[in-house]
């Protein structure tokens, strides 16, 4: 779809540099946050030491010392998902993310999903495409922030809030970034990560957000394993379903490859270290030769693992967990190809998070009894208040301040993303990437005297007092000119009420089609009739040639059925008739994002000319 994505090469140096510069600036803000955390820690620690010297903190410290440690299963989830979020955040900082993520990852993820899912996903594609610096940078800091949050807050409200933040951001990613994990598209398979890695991030986040007493009994572990058991059993049925291409390999090179074979062949093409591509290629070859057997193994393995989880008997579950982990690791290496290569890999895919969830479930099932919170400890009256703990217990103090710092890191990303989401216009960085920055000039604009689409004479003199955006358009152009006209129209919209001080002027740039009929037809085609300050001018060929020459516009016939070649630029002329800015008007890939971006750049130049007459 024209309009989705930016259309720019994913390693466009202008955008990549701006992305890295934004990360650097935001990194400095993060450093400031860390500095404030250190200052706060220092102040509170000083207060603690003063209290300790006075003997006031001893009672609270003694009470704290009787608290039981964090359940192992919870700690496993918290630390591992904290590290995974940080790893994902670092992956988001790859150079290809600003321009590659939307067209290469987000959009294809929704390609086979129902239309309503595609509409949901398009919201993020548009946001990402319009703001290719702020939004990817936001994703970096939000994910690193959540990861740090989970790592530094092992207990209490801050820890549970970290879990909730993980769920919230995970849902955003799952719905808008992964097209609901592609669960509504054909070809859904456990082998390739259904129902999406982020579902397990959310699952872990939900578990972390539960009250601590939930971890005190085996009930939570049993519930997790049952859910995973149903999930594995369902995936086994799906995997066994005939007619989905999983039972076939590729009997010979000319035959159509089975679903799994072609998936792995595709993965092997991802840019990555040779050792991983050769592993994926080897497995693709193996599956091509033994497609039926591979699928039979997958179906049986999934079914057995699912059945063992559903049994909820620790010994049986232990075997299932070991088998499940081995299966997940094998799938991660052989089929998912580790998931994060290629420059736009956003996470290590689903197998590791999935394995962590069911391993945590197993630990919660088998080790919960030893960690039960004594009733006397769990009562509010027995526990010191947060203020008392903050002033009395160094570890609690540190963790609380660190968690607030982590929230600060998350906000470093979330705030610009929220701002970007409210801005319907694309970032000017896109037009800069296509055309460079507008050149400031200062000389008298050449005069002209031509006729507009309404048969009225228009001269530069007659436009004095208004700021003029002027360009040259071919009325029968099939590619760029309609886009440039729309960019002018969009710039007019951005200016709002200020547009009454502006005239948008285009001069016919086709030596054959110079009659007014063509200007009217072009205006109808581009719905410019309702733009009050739009003037499309023409004249006799000599008049036009003189104007082209005066402004340095090159116009020439092209042979063999090609359209007329002409310069694509725009000039901004102030109310005194002086040229103030010159803009390259090449619309580049002509997507909605670049069109909107050029409009913002043009509107900025017009505002500058109005502000500094």
């Amino acid at each position, binding site marked *: 779809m024209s309009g989705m994505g930016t259309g720019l090469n994913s390693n466009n140096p202008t955008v990549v540099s701006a992305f890295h510069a934004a990360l650097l600036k935001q990194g400095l803000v993060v450093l400031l946050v860390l500095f404030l955390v250190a200052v706060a820690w220092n102040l509170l620690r000083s207060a603690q030491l003063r209290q300790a010297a006075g003997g006031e903190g001893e009672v609270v410290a003694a009470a704290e010392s009787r608290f039981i440690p964090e359940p192992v299963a919870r700690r496993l989830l918290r630390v591992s998902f904290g590290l995974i979020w940080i790893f994902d955040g670092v992956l988001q900082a790859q150079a290809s993310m600003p321009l590659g993520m939307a067209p290469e990852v987000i959009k294809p993820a929704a390609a086979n999903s129902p239309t309503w899912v595609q509409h949901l996903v398009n919201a993020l594609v548009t946001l990402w495409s319009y703001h290719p610096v702020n939004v990817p940078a936001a994703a970096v800091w939000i994910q690193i922030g959540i990861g740090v949050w989970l790592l530094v807050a092992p207990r209490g409200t801050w820890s549970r809030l970290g879990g909730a933040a993980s769920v919230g951001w995970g849902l955003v990613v799952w719905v808008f970034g992964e097209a609901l994990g592609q669960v509504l598209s054909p070809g859904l398979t456990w082998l390739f990560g259904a129902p999406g890695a982020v579902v397990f991030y959310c699952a872990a986040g939900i578990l972390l957000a539960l009250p601590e007493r939930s971890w005190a009994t085996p009930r939570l572990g049993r519930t997790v394993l049952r859910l995973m058991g149903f999930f594995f059993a369902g995936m086994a049925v799906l995997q066994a379903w005939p007619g989905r291409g999983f039972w076939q390999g590729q009997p010979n090179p000319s035959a159509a490859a089975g679903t799994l074979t072609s998936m792995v062949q595709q993965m092997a093409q991802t840019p990555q270290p040779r050792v991983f591509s050769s592993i994926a290629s080897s497995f693709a070859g193996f599956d091509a030769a033994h497609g039926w057997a591979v699928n039979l193994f997958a179906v049986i393995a999934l079914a057995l693992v699912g059945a063992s989880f559903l049994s909820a008997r620790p010994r049986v579950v232990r075997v299932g967990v070991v088998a499940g982990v081995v299966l997940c690791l094998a799938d991660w290496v052989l089929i998912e190809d580790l998931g994060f290569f290629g420059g736009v890999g956003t996470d290590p895919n689903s197998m590791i998070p999935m394995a962590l969830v069911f391993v945590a479930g197993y630990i919660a099932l088998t080790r919960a009894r030893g960690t039960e919170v004594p009733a006397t400890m769990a009562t509010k009256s027995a526990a010191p208040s947060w203020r008392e703990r903050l002033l009395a217990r160094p570890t609690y103090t540190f963790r609380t301040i660190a968690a607030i710092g982590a929230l600060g890191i998350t906000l470093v990303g979330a705030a610009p993303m929220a701002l970007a989401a409210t801005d319907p216009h694309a970032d000017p960085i896109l037009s800069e990437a296509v055309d460079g920055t507008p050149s400031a000039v200062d000389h008298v604009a050449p005069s002209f005297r031509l006729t507009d689409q309404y048969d009225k004479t228009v001269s530069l003199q007659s436009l004095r007092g208004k700021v003029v955006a002027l360009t040259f358009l071919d009325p*029968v152009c099939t590619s760029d000119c*309609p886009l440039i006209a729309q960019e002018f129209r969009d710039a007019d919209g951005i200016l709002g009420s200020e547009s009454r001080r502006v005239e948008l002027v285009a001069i016919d740039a086709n030596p054959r089609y110079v009659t007014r009929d063509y200007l009217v037809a072009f205006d109808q085609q581009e719905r410019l009739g309702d733009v009050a300050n739009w003037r499309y001018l023409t004249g006799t060929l000599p008049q036009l040639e003189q104007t082209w020459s005066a402004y340095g516009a090159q116009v020439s016939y*092209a*042979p063999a*059925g*090609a359209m*007329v070649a002409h310069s694509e630029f725009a000039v901004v002329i102030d109310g005194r008739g002086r040229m103030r800015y010159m803009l390259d008007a090449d619309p580049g890939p002509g997507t909605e994002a670049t069109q909107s971006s050029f409009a913002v750049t043009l509107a900025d130049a017009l505002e500058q000319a109005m502000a500094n007459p």
Partner: protein
Amino acid sequence: MGRLDQPPNTFWQLLFLPTGTSSWSDEVEATAVATNGGLVLAAGGRGLVVGVRPSNRLRFSPLIASSDAGRTWSNGLLSEGLAEHPQALAVDDTGQAVALVGGRGEGLARVLLSAAGLSRWKTLTTASSLAAVPGAKACGLGEITAVSLLAGSPVAGASCARPGVVGILARRTGKWELIGPPLPSSLHRGRVEVLAMTTTATTLTVLVAVSIGAADDLVAAWSADGGQDWRTSTALPVSEGLQLASVGQVSGDGLFVLMNRRTGADELDVVDGPGVPWTSLPSPPAGTATVAFPPGATPEALVVHEAALTVLGLTSASSAWVQSQVLRVPIQYGSSN
């Protein structure tokens, strides 16, 4: 010409054979508009009108006209896009023109008549109005596929849903009437689509495709009295795998039909007029885009491969196609992207 698998790099060309010469030329003054959407040619007594089909972001059709064999050109304009049919534009000896616009997802199909020159047009009828006229109801009028002018009166050709009825409609005394020729009884079960329609001063010539099941036949028909009486040709069966590539006039009231086959030899058939059977000419070379029948000369096959046009003449002695010219056209690849 160009890269025919890439619409933005496929450029339709205006080529001409100057009078008194045997070499084709592309030295036509530039159309000054991209021709990726196709060209529709209409010839009349006063010269040639070329309509440029919309493409990419262009939604209307520029027209250019020449009355001096392409030396100078004037402009016209259709504020809507010419329909996607090779016979969507026609012009008569007086310079009056008729055009078919819209259809196929580009708005309601309409038949327009030039009001003054080639820049002012008035709507004569629409597809839905035409379908409501009594005769057209009997035909089950489908898509309008061709327009023409016969002695100043507009004529439209269309497909008919009802078997055995030919959808030729003419406007007489302000009303449209179905005047389509009757088909031979052997084809009464077939659904008919008008493929081509040409007129000379007095004669209306049409070519129709008749489909019965999977089998197709082509039938030409002529009327010299404005559609009162018709004479038809024998049916030309279209072999399986053949696809119509080009239709045109030969000298007098004759027609040629070029059919391409995906694999194997193409087929070129000619019918010289009413009552004369179809004649198969030697298979033209692979890649033949169209065939020209210059007056007083042997037929020439125009073979296109990317930017090269190869002209091959049919020798009367050996009945073989012999290369006579290779013309390289300076295509501007990428200019329409």
